[in-house]
């Protein structure tokens, strides 16, 4: 039995729905998320136990142990600025389309369309990266041989599980995300305590940190920069809190805090974990040469049993991460399709009247993620594409907002409650600078395949836009007048399994 909502919550939801009507949209999705759930979905997608772990080997082989000590906080500083810039926009325009909608409003329909596609490419590849990561960890745990075929079989099963859960149980998914956030924090605390107290030797000396990096031909400074992919990929997906603002109560405040705090909290737990694991490495060459250097570091420090236990813990964390990723991805597809931005938009914008979830969008995100992983055979390529595509989509609306502000057309009254006031332009500029660096960094060798994928996507999108979409696509559009929106909502409410909750 669900707890009854407090009267003020009912009032807030009604207010939120009126606010959504101002954007011309009906309340089709189920609005119930509180502040913690909104934070938890982004925190689960950032998932320090996914990004920092699956790319631990890449990071340590490129930049050596030093990249864990210096790389993570360096990237954190800039990502905080970017997340704050996005949080402001999320507070001003709290809709599921998020970055796409912000760009459309600030730059026109063309900017919105391109932002949407880059965000979609990033979202789909991040789902692929996460769930393929789960498969590569889970297959050996299940006693299967470590080969591409087995990875793909397990990967498909995991994607289907995430599709089913998102299709039928948004309330359960929200609860699992809440649990996931606590699970991530508790997991890191347990690991750090074990590594601090039960490992005989800790080494953070200069020769250890900077004296050795992998067998790359790059000079150290460049290898270090490339190794930042580990931290930068971990810090993706926090736009999820903005994508679920139409399901969040008091979205103008809780959405942006979700975006911002998911980064800030991940920064702390991620750094503590990376420091503890790296300082506990007993045999650096053995760890660097291992199939899974993260697990090898833990096994070398604490023994095989701990290594196996950690493997299970990390695999489950990644599973939670993939679940949240499908949620965020499907909301973006739904929002873009609702405005007619995709081929066969009508199908992708369909919301299940019974479950109040965008069912076809969910399954589309699952199928495309599977196909992408089959195509991109290198893990660092998948992750590079998702980083670049997502950060391009994050920064287009920030750049457009800066231009409006520079012209004096963005006024203080346009900000939502979460705003940086006079600091805003400076924070935006720093965000842009880092975004450009990241975009260049992760499309050059050894990730040139990501560069080809991004360049190819841009050329394809440009042709597609000018040939078909320029005149057809109208940008974000109002579904109807107030009466029509109310009619849609009443119809959904009648058939929804959530009507007994009495949210409306």
């Amino acid at each position, binding site marked *: 039995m669900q707890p009854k909502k407090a009267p003020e919550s009912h009032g807030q939801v009604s207010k939120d729905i009126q606010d959504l009507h101002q954007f011309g949209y009906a309340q089709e999705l189920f609005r119930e998320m509180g502040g913690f759930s909104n934070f938890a979905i982004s925190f689960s997608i950032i998932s320090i136990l996914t990004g920092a772990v699956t790319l631990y080997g890449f990071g340590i082989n490129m930049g050596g142990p030093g990249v864990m000590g210096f790389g993570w906080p360096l990237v954190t500083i800039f990502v905080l600025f970017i997340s704050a810039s996005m949080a402001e926009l999320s507070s001003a325009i709290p809709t599921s389309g998020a970055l796409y909608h912000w760009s459309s409003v600030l730059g026109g329909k063309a900017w919105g369309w391109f932002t949407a596609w880059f965000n979609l490419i990033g979202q789909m590849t991040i789902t692929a990266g996460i769930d393929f990561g789960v498969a590569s960890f889970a297959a050996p745990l299940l006693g299967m041989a470590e080969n591409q075929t087995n990875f793909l079989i397990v990967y498909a099963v995991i994607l289907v599980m995430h599709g089913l859960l998102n299709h039928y149980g948004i309330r359960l998914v929200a609860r699992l995300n809440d649990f996931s956030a606590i699970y991530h924090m508790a997991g890191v605390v347990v690991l750090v305590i074990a590594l601090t107290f039960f490992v005989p030797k800790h080494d953070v000396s200069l020769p250890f940190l900077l004296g050795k990096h992998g067998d790359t031909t790059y000079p150290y400074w460049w290898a270090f920069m490339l190794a930042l992919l580990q931290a930068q990929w971990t810090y993706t997906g926090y736009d999820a809190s903005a994508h679920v603002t139409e399901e969040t109560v008091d979205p103008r405040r809780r959405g942006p805090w979700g975006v911002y705090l998911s980064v800030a909290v991940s920064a702390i737990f991620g750094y503590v974990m990376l420091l503890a694991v790296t300082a506990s490495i007993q045999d650096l060459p053995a760890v660097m040469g291992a199939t899974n250097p993260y697990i090898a570091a833990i096994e070398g420090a604490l023994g095989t049993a701990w290594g196996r236990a950690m493997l299970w813990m990390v695999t489950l964390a990644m599973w939670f991460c993939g679940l949240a990723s499908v949620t965020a991805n499907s909301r973006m597809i739904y929002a873009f399709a609702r405005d007619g931005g995709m081929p066969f938009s009508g199908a992708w914008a369909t919301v299940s009247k019974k479950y109040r979830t965008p069912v076809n969008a969910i399954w589309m995100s699952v199928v495309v993620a599977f196909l992408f992983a089959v195509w991109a055979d290198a893990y660092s390529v998948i992750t590079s594409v998702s980083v670049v595509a997502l950060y391009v989509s994050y920064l287009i609306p920030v750049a457009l907002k800066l231009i409006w502000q520079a012209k004096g057309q963005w006024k203080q009254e346009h*900000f939502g409650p979460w705003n940086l006031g006079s600091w805003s332009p400076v924070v935006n500029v720093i965000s842009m600078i880092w975004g450009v660096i990241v975009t260049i960094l992760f499309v050059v060798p050894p990730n040139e395949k990501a560069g080809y994928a991004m360049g190819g996507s841009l050329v394809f999108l440009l042709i597609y836009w000018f040939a078909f979409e320029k005149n057809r696509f109208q940008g974000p559009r109002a579904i109807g007048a107030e009466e029509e929106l109310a009619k849609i909502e009443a119809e959904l409410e009648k058939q929804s399994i959530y009507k007994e909750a009495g949210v409306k």
Partner: protein
Amino acid sequence: MVALGLGLFALSMVIAVALGWKAAEGSKVWDEASHINLVQTLGNGKGKK
């Protein structure tokens, strides 16, 4: 070198707190009545007014 890493991390936390504090201040003084919905000012992606 350890101090440099920890220093960088401390700096990131100072920035995190400062930006969070500024946003909280912004939230306190935000006046809902005078808020202008961007969509109403700039349109909804169908060309700027």
